[in-house]
């Protein structure tokens, strides 16, 4: 709520909400991260690479399993489809071939949903993977764009803005070449608007990658 007030003050410039991340906060998982973006808060725990069930074993690469847990009630079809997207994004980035016949389990717990949930989940997952020390060929981040009725782009929309928007687009962008890893759209938009959103997301991705870098820098500053 307090962030929303601030946003109106900031004028028309598109902006990312405040970002806060804490890594390694859980003792049991091999990697964990809490990601807070505005008021949206997500917690990720990662186990792996560990023993895999025989039925799920893949002989030449690691088996990924992603669980997205909603805050209220049991996971449904919506969660399943989001899990699949996050799973395939991770598979493309994590070098699973280095850990054949093992499992990597990613558990994502929604703590507060205040807009841009999918992109927060992606960011939290990436920070968790970094904390777990899994080998990756690049980092990735999630950016959500909302298009209002006039076609203006709002980056990282809050819940209210997301509801009022004509279309909401979420992209996962990789750090190596700033290409699109994942895309998910809600509502309909024109081709021009899509390309604009992609370009805007790529700009926003720079800020998030800088955040990743600074965060890692701080984490290892006392070594």
């Amino acid at each position, binding site marked *: 709520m*307090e*962030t929303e007030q*601030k946003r109106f003050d*900031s004028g028309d*410039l*598109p*902006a*990312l909400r*405040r*970002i*806060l*991340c*804490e*890594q*390694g*906060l*859980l*003792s*049991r*998982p091999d990697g*964990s991260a*809490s990601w*807070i973006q505005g*008021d949206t*808060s997500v*917690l*990720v*725990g990662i*186990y792996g690479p*560990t*023993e895999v069930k025989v039925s799920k074993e893949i002989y030449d690469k690691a088996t990924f399993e992603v*669980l997205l*847990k909603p*805050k*209220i*009630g*049991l996971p449904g079809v919506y969660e399943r489809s989001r899990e699949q997207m996050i799973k395939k994004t991770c598979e493309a980035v994590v070098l699973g071939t280095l850990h054949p016949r093992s*499992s990597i*389990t990613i*558990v994502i*717990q929604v*703590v*507060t949903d205040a807009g841009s949930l999918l992109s927060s989940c992606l960011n939290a997952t990436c920070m968790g993977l970094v904390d777990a020390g899994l080998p990756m060929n690049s980092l990735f981040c999630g950016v959500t764009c909302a298009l209002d009725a006039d076609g203006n*782009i709002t*980056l990282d929309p809050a819940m209210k803005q997301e509801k009022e928007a004509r279309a909401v687009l979420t992209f996962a962008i990789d750090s190596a070449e700033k290409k699109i890893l994942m895309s998910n759209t809600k509502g309909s938009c024109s*081709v*021009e608007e899509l*390309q*604009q959103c*992609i*370009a*805007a997301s790529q*700009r*926003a991705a720079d*800020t998030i990658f800088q955040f990743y870098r*600074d965060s890692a820098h*701080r*984490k290892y*500053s*006392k070594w």
Partner: protein
Amino acid sequence: MKETPLSNCEKRFLLRAIEERKRLDGRQCYDYRNIRISFGTDYGCCIVELGKTRVLGQVSCELVSPKPNRATEGILFFNLELSPMASPAFEPGRQSDLLVKLNRLLERCLRNSKCIDTESLCVVAGEKVWQIRVDLHLLNHNGNIIDAASIAAIVALCHFRRPDVSVQGEEVTLYTPEERDPVPLSIHHMPICVSFAFFQQGTYLLVDPSEQEERVMDGLLVIAMNKHCEICTIQSSGGIMLLKDQVLLCSKVTGVKVAEITELIQKALANDQKVRKEGGKFGFAESIPNQRITAFKIEQATIDTDDVQEQAEEIIAKASPPSEVLANPVLWAPGTAQIGEGVENSWGDFEESEKEEEEEEVAQDKSTTDDQTMEMGDTSVGNQDKKDETIVLSDSEEEDVIILEPEGAQKNRTETSYKQDIASKKPVSKKK
């Protein structure tokens, strides 16, 4: 994944330490680990940390019809989930024995103790009552789940505010938080569980066992109590025999612990309320210690998106526009058509036997109708011609029979027909 078993020497080490009245984390026998309570931005959302054990609680509400035998009472629902995040041994969606046991205990502690006034949750007797749902997620398992869960549940319930309602006649109006301030639940008392672990057949006793201590304990006694020292539920498990004095001692210790915890909860609640009232910062973001080296924060960052439009236009301009060469659809029978000259599918006599006819048909279609313009008259003529020569799909007629059709009525075979088509359609049905 299976839980990594505790080795024999680890077990012996732990038990020896307990015999010497020492605990691995340096606590005394009756000490609790640190309890930390933080609140989310939503009402009814909290995270309780008991040492490294962490539980997320969220309360939600919904208007439902009451149970027939309790027409004037609201419904309370508890659901504790052992998330696989908490320990690799927890499988998602599985009702393990431990989970069932914990959920039962939680219900006994919070529902059966009548700590929530369920009658105040009634909106219209026999028709609409509030269902209060408490979701608890275990995020990190480091022993003593039940104590952490019971604290999280009661804190979340105290923190929760439900939307205000008003009843006028039969109309039930729900108010948004902007219209009317949401109302808190009426809570009579706050039952809190305290666990005691017994070792060596009850010789040694520890309060608030950690995960490793839980693995070597012989028995567990859980007492739920409120700050008035009223016992709400008591459960002994593990099959150890306890003496009367032991139970009395435990209940005395419980009384002290519950008083401490209750005070902490009330302080936390008051603090959160104060901050909210004063318009200060609240939520989980504020509860992350900033000085921690693993935590990092940036304030709102503006993104320069000035030339985004040009960049998008450039990409679109460079890309090849959609080609205008289109495959022409081939109509096989009314209701069946095809496009594409790619590979045929490999199954089916259907295609093979039709291949020749298809070609004929294309030729014929091209001659009769100019480049397959879709004039209604033309196509229908084409179809009828074709039906005369080759009965392509004899059952395609039956496909169109509508089951709901009243008997005796003129058989309207075509579902898609509009009224004005009836005249043109009659000869078709007669022909059959």
